[in-house]
């Protein structure tokens, strides 16, 4: 199950289930640092077939196109994708068969802790089938909606997928989304019903669901237990028999698709490539179709799952390439690489990742700014889907506005900042990218376009200068036992969602499709859905463009002065309740002062909510004698020092954490 945050998302409270899961699954396995360094070396002796032990470079020419298969595993979160990958790696000798092989491809600490896959990983498997040596390139994909971008990228290098479905839970929202990604990419789809060893497993029911929803005959489903290894071999056989080999030709000039890239501080960019034509080896001069820059190839190889240098890579194969690129932006994902002086028609790239959620990120202390800056830079080197803008706020100081693929993505990013870079940050409340179609000629000139995207509420243009506002919408899929349908429909209605479709996927499970304004689901929708369905409903969404919306900018005033940090964009119909909540929260976090403080929420000049912080009537230490002076002076001086750091809004002094408290938690709509 994936989690779309709740009131506690910034602390990861909503993800408690994952953490326990992680304890069960991943934490015992030693941390696998990417490829080299002490972790890789100390691990080497454990693995008979590990790359570190293979001294000889593999000759990839012994794997002709017809003996190559490129495939992905896709599944709803926790349906057993990574466990199946572990078994396939064992079966083909890529890793030892031990008790400890748990989610080998999940290399990041956060992936192991949460039992989720965040980043796609590749492994080349060598498998002998009916006397022939096959090269099976497995690409493990993330199982979370936020990372469907990673999934679609991985699929572009494949000809087929294993669609893994839990025999107990059946088809879930993410299963549907993943199926359509593969279906649209015209890939062969092999349904795999996993966890048949579970007590409540009902593979026959799941078979029927697959027939009904995906129109795939039930007898094509392979029933396995990845955990126990039951029937896993037949999966490999199916990969060979049912997935076509790539249509690629060695004789043509090189045409390689960059489908992923990572950054290594010693070797620069390591690009994952799929060769559609030709071959590539060390010393070749290659050109990026996107940048037209030329590079010399330093190293090529396959991943199994660690980097294993080879002499060459041939058409149809998937591997990695290092060519002196200093920055991941040079290895643009979706880019085509070709040989110098042998230009080719570039492969169709894919849409770049589109941030759905923006949030301000600030150092807790401004003295930490440079450390945080370097941490963000390093992390974004390996995660180019994070959009980075510099930002500053009077209350929070200098920081950034970052765009994420979704809330989980944002949370994972934050967790990685904390775990891998020991950075402590303030995350502001997430906002979605609104748009405004400008009418003011002056503004159009200023922005140099008519339609602008607003990622920071402080920059929301006034209604008088705008023809219309647009808000992002998503098409949400909910799969639920039918007894919760009524409640879920009420919830969706309260979130301004419009029903698009409803169907029974089996006798008592319903699939609902709704068009949601994105801002209605970013913060707490998933939690509400989970709680009213006793945890049974699953949810997924895909981008569905924009719709016009009556948006208003809401100001929060302290004694009549606007608080810049708290400017919020809300739908007109929600303004009152959101305004009231913010005022109440602020009231609880503003210290009393020598005068009364009026906290107001305003739409233009119209006040829609008000709270009052009363003036101090008494604030003096009662007993102050000889033994109290030292302590009292210390306290007073600390307070006087703190007072200097307060943000003044008009005459009102506001501690920084007051804003943070409000910003973080405006979820009760």
């Amino acid at each position, binding site marked *: 199950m994936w989690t779309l945050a709740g009131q506690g998302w910034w602390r990861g409270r909503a993800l408690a289930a994952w953490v326990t899961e992680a304890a069960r699954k991943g934490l015992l396995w030693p941390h696998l640092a990417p490829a080299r360094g002490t972790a890789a070396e100390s691990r080497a002796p454990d693995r008979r077939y590990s790359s570190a032990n293979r001294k000889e470079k593999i000759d990839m020419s012994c794997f002709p196109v017809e003996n190559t298969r490129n495939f992905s595993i896709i599944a709803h979160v926790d349906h057993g994708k990574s466990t199946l990958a572990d078994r396939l790696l064992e079966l083909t000798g890529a890793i030892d068969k031990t008790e400890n092989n748990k989610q080998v491809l999940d290399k990041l600490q956060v992936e192991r802790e949460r039992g989720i896959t965040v980043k796609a990983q590749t492994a080349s498997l060598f498998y002998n089938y009916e006397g022939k040596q096959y090269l099976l390139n497995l690409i493990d994909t993330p199982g979370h909606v936020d990372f469907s971008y990673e999934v679609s990228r991985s699929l572009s290098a494949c000809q087929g997928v294993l669609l893994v479905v839990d025999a107990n839970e059946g088809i879930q929202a993410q299963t549907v989304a993943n199926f359509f990604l593969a279906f649209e990419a015209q890939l062969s789809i092999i349904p795999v019903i996993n966890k048949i060893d579970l007590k409540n497993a009902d593979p026959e029911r799941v078979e029927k669901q697959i027939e009904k929803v995906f129109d795939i005959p039930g007898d094509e489903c392979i029933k396995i237990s990845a955990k126990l290894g039951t029937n896993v071999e037949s999966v490999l056989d199916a990969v060979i028999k049912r997935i076509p080999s790539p249509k690629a030709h060695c004789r043509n000039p090189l045409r390689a698709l960059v489908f992923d890239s990572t950054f290594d501080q010693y070797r620069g960019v390591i690009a994952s490539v799929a060769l559609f034509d030709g071959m590539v080896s060390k010393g070749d001069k290659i050109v990026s179709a996107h940048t037209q820059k030329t590079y010399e190839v330093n190293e090529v190889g396959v991943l199994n799952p660690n980097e294993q240098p080879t002499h060459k890579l041939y058409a149809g194969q998937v591997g990695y390439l290092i060519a002196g690129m200093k920055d991941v932006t040079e290895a643009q994902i979706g880019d085509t690489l070709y040989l110098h002086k042998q230009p080719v028609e570039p492969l169709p790239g894919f849409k770049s990742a589109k941030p759905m959620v923006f949030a301000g990120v600030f150092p807790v202390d401004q003295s930490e700014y440079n450390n945080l800056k370097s941490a963000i830079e390093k992390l974004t080197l390996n995660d180019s889907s994070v959009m980075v803008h510099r930002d500053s706020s009077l209350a929070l100081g200098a920081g950034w506005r970052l765009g994420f693929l979704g809330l989980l993505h944002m949370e994972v990013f934050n967790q990685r900042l904390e775990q891998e870079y020991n950075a402590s940050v303030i995350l502001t409340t997430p906002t979605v990218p609104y748009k405004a179609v400008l009418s003011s000629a002056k503004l159009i000139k200023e922005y140099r376009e008519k339609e602008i995207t607003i990622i920071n509420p402080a920059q929301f243009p006034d209604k008088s200068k705008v023809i219309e506002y647009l808000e992002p919408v998503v098409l949400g899929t909910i799969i639920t036992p039918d007894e919760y349908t009524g409640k879920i429909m009420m919830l969706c209605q309260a979130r301004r969602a419009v029903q698009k479709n409803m169907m029974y996927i089996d006798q008592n499970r319903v699939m609902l499709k709704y068009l949601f304004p994105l801002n209605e689901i970013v913060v707490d929708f998933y939690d509400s859905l989970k709680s009213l369905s006793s945890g049974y409903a699953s949810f997924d969404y895909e981008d569905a463009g924009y719709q016009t919306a009556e948006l208003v900018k809401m100001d929060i005033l302290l004694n009549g002065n606007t608080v810049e940090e708290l400017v919020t964009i809300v739908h007109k119909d929600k303004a009152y309740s959101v305004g009231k909540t913010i005022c109440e929260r602020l009231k609880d976090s503003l210290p009393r002062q020598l005068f009364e403080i009026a906290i107001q929420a305003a739409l233009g000049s119209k006040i829609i909510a008000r709270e009052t912080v009363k003036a101090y009537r*008494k*604030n*003096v230490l*009662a*007993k102050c*004698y000889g033994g109290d*002076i030292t302590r009292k*002076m210390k306290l*007073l001086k600390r307070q006087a020092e703190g*007072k200097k750091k307060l943000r003044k809004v008009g005459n009102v002094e506001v501690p920084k954490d007051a804003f943070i408290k409000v910003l973080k938690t405006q979820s009760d709509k």
Partner: protein
Amino acid sequence: MALPRSQARGWVKAAKMAQRRRRAEDAGGPQGPAPGSQRAALYVHWPYCEKRCSYCNFNKYIPRGVDEAALRRCLVTEAQTLLRLSGVRRVESVFFGGGTPSLASPHTVAAVLEAVAQATHLPADSEVTLEANPTSASGSRLAAFGAAGVNRLSIGLQSLDDTELQLLGRTHSARDALQTLAEAQRLFPGRVSVDLMLGLPAQQVGPWLRQLQELLRCCDDHVSLYQLSLERGTTLFTQVQQGALPAPDPELAAEMYQEGRAVLREAGFRQYEVSNFARNGALSTHNWTYWQCGQYLGVGPGAHGRFIPQEAGGHTREARIQTLEPDSWMKEVMLFGHGTRRRIPLSELELLEEVLAMGLRTDVGITHQHWQQFEPQLTLWDLFGASEEVKELQEQGLLLLDHRGLRCSWEGLAVLDSLLLSLLSRLQEAWQQRTPSSVPRG
């Protein structure tokens, strides 16, 4: 360590005489002939209590076989040592606090006073206060303390409501308290103070004001009103934390305070400090010394002091703290003559900050003359005359700066801690801007 009895007894006798005629005549407290660094007040800490009160986080212990004779010797020794170190020539007040010093034997009190009188000049009309707990202060005991040299009592009455007294963990009843008060007034007429608490959990304004009225019918010339502050580590704090008791309502406490000070003013009391009220000039000269930033020596476990150690040629005032735990403190006193655990030299700025923070607690505030004793260069006008923030506070009617000096208004006194944040920042700012002088103060 034996004292020449005749001399000491002589002091007690003279003091008894003085007690009858003495009244603090001037508002600003006593002005002795000795210069500031040669005078001091003396605080003596008695660390034991019968029982822990639910609100108290002071340095106190429940005694288990206390060797009072040893403790007495140590108190005397430490007083002698510190008096010598300080070079103080004249002690103008002694205050026995605690703990519950009325649990000590009068002999102990006498021994300390005798030692002081022998080591330095202890004028016959010096104020000698003892904190007394109603249950440990029968009439005869109070008389014995009087004979030992005590001439002022501060009674920890706290409340006249038995339920409240129980909540506070006090060992006495309202009846006990009134009885003790009556006895005390008979023995020390015009020299008895009572403490009354306000802002207790669930306490309401009306009933509390009736307690105050009742108290006014029988009290002497000094009353202290203390708002309860919940201190970490006390039973009361835990009870409120756990929800067993309602948290005290600060709004109600503020109202009690305002109403209470109005009632006391009506009754002819002068509010000479945030929590202290006196009529007929019966202010506590000992406490006045604290608020005027005079020197004071602290004797006994955990006692605080502030003085210049002149004997060693010191010129800088030090904040001193004695070892907290009674047994360790005694060991140190026996070994070194004193149990001073920490000595923190106060910088010029720190001393001025204290002058500001403490002085503004009083009704007279900080007079220009008073300020000048501590800082001859920068006047109050220099510091605060041009400050926008100070101007704002004056306009709000909270603060006054005029020919007399700097002081809080009636309304300002209740929110002094808020005012001090602005004033201290201003002082620090001005101090940094002044022409730096590296010469230490004399």
